[in-house]
Every structure is written in structure tokens, then in C-alpha cells.
């Protein structure tokens, strides 16, 4: 299978990328790892006239970490780099564990976190953990920039609010509060790529004085047209002591917040199971 022809640019700054995106309007695509872009081009699902590579720009493969501000991840940071980053492993363990699950060894060496988000697959594994971490994305275009919460980024299957002239330059992940832990639980199809059928991420903050749940966030992938937060289920947990009955109830509520596009019965039921599992696992980690 061949990649259809295109005109290739390899600019050396984000400004130049923005100028090119402006000049070619909707006819250009940005290249980071290529694991989604070239598959789509080979299958002729998209046929951009122009491909703009980010690989000539310095420092886009950096992970910046700060005890106060949290993480900043550039657009050329691969899944493998996140898996192996010591600070991420320590403070954002379930994010690095999730990235280890994505694709295969080869794909993790090529594919980028930002590319995964821009592809906007409803079953994107990175999305559920990033949603519960209250991640923001920094978007720039020729005449300015904006920073938006990740949950506003996804608008439908493989659709985002990203304008054809915009580019995502940074993933910003705030540092979680003390006494906080997260877990990502998933089930996937039996194949090498192992596309996720249901993914559930839970982030809990427990008050050590009275063991009540100060903060609960639940993110779900593959059970609606975009990755979603299960806000009603979160409210079920907040302010309560996390006993068996409450955990079961929250998992039930989360199940009712899903809107699977296919295999509805299975996906709903497994949402309940995985949310419960992720809550229990997160609680264990805090203890």
C-alpha cells in the first residue's frame, strides 16, 4: 500500500507551521508520529495536498514537570517517552500505565499523545485518564492562541474543535491534590492493536481525617460518541465515606450515563464493573 502524493514541508518553528496552515487552509495536515495520518492516507480516507512535519522543530519532544504546576507535554512526546519518564511514573502512575497499554511497542515509539488526542477516537485510551486529571490543551494559530479543557476538545467520533488552521502545542496536566490516586481499567478486543471496548478512569481524593471522599472524577472511553465524564456518578461519591453500597450505586449511575453506539448491553454492563474496579483500586493506592 502506497501513501498518495503530497507536498512536504518541514518548518523549523511553530510560527511557520501556523503560516503554512493559514496558507493552505483545509488542505494541509500536520505530521507528528504518522501512525494515524498515514494509515488514513493509505486507505484514502483523507487526501491532504500538503503534509507539514513537526519533526524539524526543536524541543517539541519535551516533558516539562514541576512540583507546583504539574506536567506540560509537547506535541512530539511519544507514548514510550511518557511510559519511561521517572516523574510521570511517580506522580501520574496511571497515565504512564495507560500509555504502556496503547498500541504496540513499535506504535508507542512513533505515536504521540497529542496525535492520539487529535485523532479523537471515542476509544482513545489516553483520553479517560486525561479527562479525570482535568487536562487542558493549548491551541495556537497564526493570530493568537487559546487554552481549553480537554472535555471541550472532543465533539464527536474523530471530531474535535480544532480549526484546520490551528495546532495543539501543549497538553497541560495540573498536579493532583494530596491523598489522591487514580486507576484506569479497561477491556479490549482480542487483536494486536487491542482497540478498547470499555475504558474507565477514576481519580479520588480522600480526606485522611474522616475518610470521606473530597473529590471524585470518573472518565469513560468507548461508551459514547466521545470520551465523557460521568458527572452524576461523581456526585454520588463526593462527600461520602466510600463504603460498598455507595461504590455500587456510583457504578450503577455511571452505567446509566453511557450512550454506547454499538454493543450497548455489553458496554453498559462492563462500565458498571470497571468503574467499581477502578474505584476500589484507587482507594487501595491511597491507603
Amino acid at each position: 500500500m502506497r501513501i498518495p502524493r503530497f507536498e512536504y514541508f518541514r518548518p523549523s518553528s511553530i510560527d511557520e507551521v501556523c503560516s503554512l496552515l493559514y496558507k493552505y487552509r483545509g488542505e494541509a495536515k500536520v505530521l507528528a508520529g504518522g501512525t494515524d495520518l498515514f494509515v488514513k492516507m493509505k486507505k484514502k480516507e483523507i487526501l491532504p495536498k500538503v503534509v507539514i512535519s513537526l519533526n524539524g522543530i526543536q524541543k517539541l519532544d519535551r516533558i516539562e514537570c514541576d512540583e507546583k504546576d504539574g506536567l506540560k507535554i509537547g506535541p512530539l512526546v511519544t507514548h514510550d517517552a511518557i511510559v519511561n519518564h521517572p516523574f510521570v511514573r511517580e506522580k501520574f502512575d496511571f497515565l504512564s500505565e495507560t500509555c504502556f497499554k496503547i498500541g504496540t511497542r513499535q506504535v508507542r515509539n512513533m505515536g504521540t499523545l497529542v496525535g492520539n488526542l487529535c485523532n479523537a477516537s471515542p476509544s482513545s485510551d489516553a483520553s479517560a485518564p486525561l479527562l479525570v486529571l482535568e487536562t487542558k490543551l493549548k491551541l495556537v494559530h497564526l493570530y493568537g492562541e487559546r487554552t481549553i479543557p480537554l472535555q471541550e476538545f472532543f465533539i464527536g467520533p474523530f471530531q474535535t474543535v480544532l480549526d484546520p488552521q490551528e495546532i495543539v502545542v501543549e497538553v497541560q496536566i495540573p498536579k493532583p491534590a494530596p491523598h489522591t490516586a487514580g486507576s484506569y481499567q479497561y477491556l479490549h478486543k482480542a487483536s494486536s492493536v487491542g482497540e478498547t471496548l470499555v475504558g474507565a478512569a477514576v481519580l479520588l481524593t480522600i480526606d485522611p481525617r474522616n475518610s470521606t471522599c473530597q473529590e471524585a472524577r470518573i472518565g469513560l472511553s468507548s461508551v459514547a460518541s466521545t470520551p465523557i465524564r460521568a458527572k452524576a456518578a461523581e456526585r454520588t461519591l463526593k462527600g461520602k465515606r466510600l463504603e460498598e453500597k455507595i461504590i455500587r450505586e456510583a457504578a450503577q449511575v455511571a452505567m446509566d450515563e453511557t450512550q454506547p453506539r454499538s454493543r450497548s448491553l455489553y458496554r453498559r454492563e462492563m462500565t458498571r464493573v470497571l468503574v467499581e474496579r477502578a474505584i476500589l483500586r484507587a482507594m487501595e493506592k491511597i491507603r
Partner: protein
Amino acid sequence: MKKQLIELRVNGESFELAVEPQKTLLEVVREDLGLTGAKEACGTGECGACTVLIDGKPILSCLTLAIEAQGKEITTIEGLAKAGELHPLQKAFIRYGAIQCGYCTSGMILNAKSILDENPKPSRDEILKGLEGNLCRCTGYNKILEAVMAASTGED
């Protein structure tokens, strides 16, 4: 589209080539350099037959532009044998019958090499997880696993 002059480092040698930008690294090593060890099977990054190493890390050459592989050290299966002597993994694959049709073998061995370079004594599960992106339709994987285990223990 106009051809562009590029320089690639493959198996320790430098090559200057004129390529169109949409040419994949796989097409260039096979068609321009005559290194036909890397194979195309799915063409979409699922099977691992096209795996080569870039700066020691396994990547999919069917989804990598040749033009983007400049300035990097590329290793194909042809680069593993040294002075006529097969690499220990190649020997182990032969000894354990881990090759049948051979189509997956070059990608499988290169990925296995990168696994052992990173962790010389991986567990059975670590090898399995590491090789999940290389599909084999003949061996049932057991013989491949045995061969990689044998190579990791230094058995010759």
C-alpha cells in the same frame, strides 16, 4: 512531486538518494537499497513485518517517511550478522525452529533484539508483551518465545 536528495545511514553505511516525499522508509530500503529483509504485509501498522530499528528502537517502516529518517541510525535485518557470523538471536531462531514461512522473522528478530538490548533478562511475560506488535501465522509463537528466551540466557 519533485524528488528530493536525502542521505540515509543504514547498517552503518551512508547512502545518498533522490526520493519523492511520500516514499516510505520500507519502500526505499527494499526498492532503492535492495535490502529486502523488511517485509510489507498489512501496510497499516498492525503486523510488524516491516519493523526496523531507528536509533535502536523498533519502528514501523511502512508508516515512516524515508525523508524523515535522515540523520538517524537505521538497522535492518541485513545489519545484524557481523563478519559472516549470525547474531545470537538469528542462531536461536534457527535452532528452535522459530522460522517457518519467514515473513515475520526479520521484524520479529529486530524487535526481540531491542527488547534484549533494553533488558537483557526479560521474563516470559515481558517478551510476550514486547512482541505483541509482531504477528506470526505459522509458529503459534511458542518456538519464537523459546528462541528469544534461549538467546537471553546466552545459549549459543
